[in-house]
């Protein structure tokens, strides 16, 4: 039985919070709660999900305003002390804005909002987020974003590569991301940010359960 206690943060404008809740609570049968962004503390939660959506209308820059909401200061402390945090899509953008992950997500190179299932390669399966994947396994996960073009400076990219922080790459880069990067972990390996949505590929009835490999990996890491 997993000791994971999932907390899904709800910002004004989050819209994948219920998908994430369903994937953890109803499919993986994990203790799962929503956390409203105005709360002061994450309480007893030990696995924090920053879900997809358009927090604060994506005003100024995606994720820039969510970064200063009440609950985020507790989440930043939690993450800096080794707590496990996953940011999906807008959540990834928020993690980059907080500086918990390096780099930034720019407007897609083709200027379009892209909503489709894409093929990813798992570049590293020695992480708590990819333990149930094979190395170089190809998985199909949906994306839905207008600002998903990952960018960082040359030094940061060299560090990401040499520290095996790149977990997922696009096989057919849809958005112009540097080095086809779709998802990265921090150097301490307790924070994951990814643009594709594993929670949208979690239920058999939707025809694709590749996302479960990622979500179950992290849940099982709490056993």
């Amino acid at each position, binding site marked *: 039985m997993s000791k994971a206690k999932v907390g899904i943060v709800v910002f004004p404008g989050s819209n994948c919070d219920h998908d994430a809740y369903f994937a953890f609570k109803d499919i993986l049968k994990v203790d799962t709660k929503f956390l409203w962004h105005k709360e002061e503390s994450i309480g007893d939660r030990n696995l924090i999900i920053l879900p997809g959506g358009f927090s604060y209308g994506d005003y100024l820059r995606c994720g820039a305003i969510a970064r200063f909401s009440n609950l985020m200061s507790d989440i930043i402390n939690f993450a800096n002390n080794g707590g496990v945090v996953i940011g999906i899509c807008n959540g990834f953008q928020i993690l980059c804005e907080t500086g918990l992950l390096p780099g930034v997500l720019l407007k897609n190179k083709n*200027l379009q909002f892209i909503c489709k299932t894409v093929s990813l390669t798992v570049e590293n399966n020695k992480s708590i987020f990819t333990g149930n994947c094979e190395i170089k396994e190809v998985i199909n996960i949906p994306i839905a974003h207008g600002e998903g073009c990952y960018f960082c400076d040359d030094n940061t990219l060299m560090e990401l590569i040499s520290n095996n922080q790149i977990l997922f790459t696009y096989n057919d880069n849809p958005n112009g991301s540097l080095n086809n990067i779709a998802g990265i972990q921090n150097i301490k390996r307790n924070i994951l940010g990814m643009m594709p949505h594993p929670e949208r590929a979690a239920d058999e009835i939707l025809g694709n359960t590749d996302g479960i490999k990622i979500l179950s990996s992290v849940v099982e890491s709490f056993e």
Partner: protein
Amino acid sequence: MFIAKIRITLRSSILDPQGKAVEGSLNSLGFEEIIDTRIGKYIELKIDSDKKAEAENIAGLACKKLLANPVMENYEFDIIKSDGG
């Protein structure tokens, strides 16, 4: 009272696909002399302070902490005295 007029631009190393699209449109309108187009943001802050140095400091901190992301953007601003209103 001071007004900070802040300009935020993408760093030159960052591709600006929006600028490229607008540039293409300008070129097709016949503005062939326009060879580069970059799109940024303009922000005005009204700052309740009677010292210009203090207003400058506040505007700089606001840019650093929230208004610009140094990974992808540069900022610059002018501080102008205002009578309020």
